[in-house]
């Protein structure tokens, strides 16, 4: 078959269609986005542009790697050092601190709210920046000067589902596009042979059961579904339905697709519907994905040195460490938004033992990812975001003993860190009170965080919108202020 003549047809029609309905809605957008890979490949660049012709600001980060710590890691044990707590161990959290806070049903009936210091963990300052971290993150501590720690994140949500949904879609109720979908809608991708928005999930080592995730977290809401995140799985097909059925090898598939393309081309000649050419192009991209995805997920070419950097766990598919290594490979190949979820951070009880396990899962891999991107010259153009949907209470949930305690959800303050493209390295931003309970200085709401992430990508969060049910929607809804102090 003659690919070239198809492509020239497609290019021709794409231009006509695109210009013919430049102000068009979903159809025009989806059409242009889906066809442009063909135009691009004719130009030997495999980009898929987004809805924005050019970014609103210079692009400091070309892509995002979001390391989502699902369940809500405790800022009290990890980053937010509060020396006063040791003295107050076991005493009641003053009412003046707790105020009128809405508690979850898990502790609202508790009669006592004893302060629990993170006594089993030692905090130290690290690097030239002197950032505080506990001994739960010994490897991350070594790259302290590469990261920016925000201690004043806050959210209104107090339970996992609404909190994660708020952080990732800008709204507590389901139905809005996720940040990865917004990003690929806005600025497309640099590699049309791979999905623009990729999701990698790992199970935590904590003993407590992990909270559920939801497909909608990488969904598109009201955006067309071609912007949805594609979950790369660690067992079975990495992308659903990627493998040919038993008995169909690659050459048979090629033969079938050649026949199909020729039939569809006849259909096009008869109907003149440009969607037919798009479909031909999509089958071709599916075929390319059948080789590009396995090549991507095959880690056999990585050196021992690299595995050592991410930790030996990175040899085991499906671990957080392996996913971090995959994230680097995706970043190298131009994927726009790489979303990792590491489950199991919901330490309502047995916090000391479970947080150790969780921290071990991620500490070396995070540090490895930063170092690896840096040595490959990719850190400057890749934004890494680490954190969960909320923090944990300084008071103990359940019984506080000499060795054990738990912590409930806490949205008033929590810690995240960012690194790479557009972010000032080696700083801490925002201050909480002596109890790590309320924000004392420079609050950063989750909308502010999202506005800042988009800004690093060159996007004005107020100007990336989609009209749905009578109004323009955006990721930050009607909120969000870019945290300029942390930008380079």
């Amino acid at each position: 078959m003659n690919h070239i003549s198809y492509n020239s047809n497609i290019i021709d029609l794409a231009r006509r269609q695109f210009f013919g309905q430049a102000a068009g809605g979903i159809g025009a957008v989806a059409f242009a986005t889906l066809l442009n890979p063909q135009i691009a490949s004719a130009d030997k660049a495999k980009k898929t542009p987004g809805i924005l012709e050019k970014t609103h600001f210079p692009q400091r980060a070309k892509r995002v790697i979001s390391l989502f710590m699902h369940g809500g890691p405790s800022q009290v044990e990890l980053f937010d050092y509060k020396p006063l707590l040791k003295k107050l161990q076991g005493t009641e959290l003053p009412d003046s601190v707790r105020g009128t806070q809405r508690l979850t049903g898990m502790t609202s009936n508790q009669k006592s709210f004893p302060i629990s210091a993170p006594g089993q963990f030692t905090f130290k300052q690290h690097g030239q920046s002197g950032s505080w971290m506990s001994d739960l993150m010994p490897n991350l501590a070594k790259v302290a000067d590469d990261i920016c720690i925000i201690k004043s994140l806050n959210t209104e949500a107090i339970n996992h589902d609404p909190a994660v949904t708020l952080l990732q879609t800008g709204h507590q109720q389901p139905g809005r596009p996720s940040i990865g979908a917004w990003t690929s809608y806005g600025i497309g991708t640099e590699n049309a042979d791979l999905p623009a928005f990729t999701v990698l999930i790992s199970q935590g080592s904590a003993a407590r059961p992990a909270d559920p995730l939801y497909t909608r977290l990488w969904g598109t809401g009201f955006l067309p579904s071609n912007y949805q995140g594609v979950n790369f799985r660690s067992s079975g097909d990495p992308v659903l339905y990627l493998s040919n059925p038993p008995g169909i090898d690659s050459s048979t598939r090629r033969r079938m697709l050649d026949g199909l393309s020729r039939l569809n081309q006849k259909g096009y000649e008869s109907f003149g519907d440009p969607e037919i050419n798009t479909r031909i192009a999509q089958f071709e991209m599916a075929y390319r994905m059948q080789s590009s995805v396995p090549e991507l997920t095959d880690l056999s070419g990585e050196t021992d040195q690299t595995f050592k950097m991410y930790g030996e766990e990175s040899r085991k598919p499906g671990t957080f460490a392996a996913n971090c290594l995959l994230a680097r490979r995706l970043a190298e190949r131009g994927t726009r938004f790489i979303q990792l979820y590491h489950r199991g951070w919901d330490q309502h009880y047995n916090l000391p033992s479970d947080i150790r396990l969780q921290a071990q899962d991620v500490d070396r891999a995070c540090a490895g990812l930063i170092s690896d991107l840096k040595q490959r010259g990719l850190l400057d153009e890749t934004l890494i975001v680490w954190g969960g949907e909320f923090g944990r209470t300084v008071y103990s949930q359940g019984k506080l003993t000499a060795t054990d305690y738990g912590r409930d959800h806490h949205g008033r303050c929590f810690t995240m860190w960012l690194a790479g493209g557009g972010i000032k390295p080696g700083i801490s931003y925002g201050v909480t009170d002596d109890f790590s309970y309320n924000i004392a200085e420079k609050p950063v709401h989750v909308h502010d965080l999202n506005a800042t992430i988009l800004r690093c990508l060159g996007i004005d969060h107020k100007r990336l919108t989609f009209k749905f049910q009578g109004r323009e929607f955006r990721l930050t809804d009607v909120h969000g202020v870019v945290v300029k102090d942390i930008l380079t």
Partner: protein
Amino acid sequence: MTVDVPVSLSRLPKEAPKNRLGLARWLVGRTHPLTARVIVNRYWQHCFGTGLVKTAEDFGTQGEWPSHPDLLDWLAVEFMESGWDVKHFHRLIVTSATYRQTAKLSPTGMTRLLAIDPENRLLAHGPRFRLDAEVVRDNALTISGLLAEQIGGISVKPYQPEGIWKAISYDSNLTYQQDRGSGLYRRSIYTFWKRQSPPPGMLAFDAPTRETCTVRRPRTNTPLQALTLMNDTTYIEAARVLAQRMMTEPKQTTPQARIQFAFRLAIARLPKPGEAKILLDLFQKQLKEFKKNKQAAARLIEVGESKRNQSLDVIELATWTTIASVILSMDETVTK
């Protein structure tokens, strides 16, 4: 506060009680400006792919102006005067000259119409759009003859790749228990819907997640759709079962007759000589390949849980399965 309706629309009928019954009467009252217009617009969207008001979910100030305002009003009045007769209304549309136009564009149409009216809002030719997610699957089941026509009953769990629920469920302890037998072949409206993790083959084709009401679906065209049609067990099994039909049902047993039979089942027309030749060439090439590799042929026809017709030659059945798979994946097959 008193009970009433927005005065900007129309008044409650005088005799209407100020309760839900009154509200219902007001909604379908002759003076209500929206109800009939909104519903006929949705039926129009259903048939033509796009409503006369494109923003079918929004008739307010932020919605789009109708492409044919007089037609919309006429249809709304006709619908009310027919006694809100849905069947009458659909008959009216599908027997209209506008609906019955061909979707084919002449060479002039391709260059001129696409430039003037790329979305065909002026309806210079017939509608042509991809089937909805549920219908893509139901269509393949119907063509192959696998469809279980039972009406009603509890939801069913058709094929789904392993591990999808487990990866995200609480404590990873929830696995998908796939049905056996007819549960695999029911219409997609009976498919069990877990909002936390909806069926991926449906999401690929723009089925809404069912978390919010959706009046109008986007209609994308993506590589994931291609992969689903190429490799999902649902479609490979449908291809194998269609191949069995091709080998047993037509009176003539020539390859040509079999291709014609399947083509007609799939898209309700016979193949043109050029189309038949493409499939015939593919059949002959693939037959050679499978003759060299009988094991591959045997593996292909084991896909799916429905019983295989053991009397059919393994190599031939596998070869026809590839042909049927191509026919089921054709743009015209998944397009209305």
